[in-house]
């Protein structure tokens, strides 16, 4: 009973990373999110859509630019970007806006992570349920910090500069 209630609640500090089915790379390799990123410290940020203006001009570039600072200050081994986009779209986006591949792109193509974490937003202009905009830091699979944009898509608390200033 308790675990069912948990599934319906949004991910929060102290929770484990969801065991969501996602894909990485071209050709796509299926991974379990919790298994793949469950060791050490990792920063994960979610974007509503590859190639959309806010994600492309602000959110992703911020993490690309601040990658070294983020790794140093927060001791994270990896910076991960997750989106409800397929691996081909994410690779094209990554190649254009993160050519040195400082960020690991994770494809949540059927919104499994978004649904299981509750970090989701309905965006009809894009076609439906997307990842909300958020940033989290996890250590050994447990969420230590989590910032989700209040409206799911704004550009404030989940930006790299905001984390660097606040934490």
């Amino acid at each position, binding site marked *: 009973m308790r675990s069912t209630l948990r599934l319906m609640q949004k991910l929060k500090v102290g929770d484990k990373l969801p065991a969501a089915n996602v*894909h990485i790379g071209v050709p*796509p390799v*299926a991974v379990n999110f919790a298994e793949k990123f469950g060791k050490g410290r990792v920063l994960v940020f979610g974007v509503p*859509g*590859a*190639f*959309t*203006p806010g994600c492309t001009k602000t959110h992703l570039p911020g993490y690309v630019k601040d990658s070294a600072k983020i790794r140093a200050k927060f001791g994270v081994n990896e910076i991960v970007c997750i989106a409800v*986009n*397929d*691996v*081909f*779209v994410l*690779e*094209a*986006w990554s190649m*254009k806006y993160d050519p040195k591949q400082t960020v690991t792109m994770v*494809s949540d*193509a*059927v919104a499994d992570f978004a649904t299981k974490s509750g970090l989701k937003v309905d965006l*009809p*202009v*894009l*076609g*439906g349920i997307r990842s909300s905009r958020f940033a989290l830091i996890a250590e050994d699979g447990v969420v230590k910090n989590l910032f989700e944009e209040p409206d799911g898509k704004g550009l404030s608390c989940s930006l790299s500069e905001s984390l660097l200033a606040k934490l």
Partner: protein
Amino acid sequence: SKSLFNVSKRYISVGETIPHANLKLVEWKNGEYATTVLDSHSAFANQRVILIGYPGAFTPSCENVHLPEYIKRAAELKADGTDKIFAMSVNDPFVVGAFAKKLEAGDAITWIADGNGEFTKALDAGVDLSGAALGYRSRRFTMIIENKKVVEFNDEKGPQMTDLSRVVSVLTQLGKLKKKK
């Protein structure tokens, strides 16, 4: 393998009218891609158009083989009574705009960004590509549509790319249509 793809048993047929659906159109205007919304009946009325269905922007066959040859021969396709070339996929307008830019398509194609799959479902032209990490997508197909009626339907019945989808096949069919008149 065939088991990966669930294809609807009911396809739209030659002679049927295109169903009504709201389309997000991505078009080249003043040096950039802009999105507008228009219903399918308005979009296809009183014209002969080609409608290309493809599984996904930035996927290998779509990017390297299928779309480029239609873009390259757009002028030929549109000569002599064909007004527009539409291309549709289950992608959002931002992804489609970026894809069109990468292909350097200019105004050759009017793109339908069927992000929620509404039009694909209405046409019954979908295929389940969850096994390939893509989800619900359009099959690969080409249609020739005259005043909203399907006059030719070349359906790959899946995501595969065969000679059926090559631009030469459509050019041949267009040639036969013109001879009829």
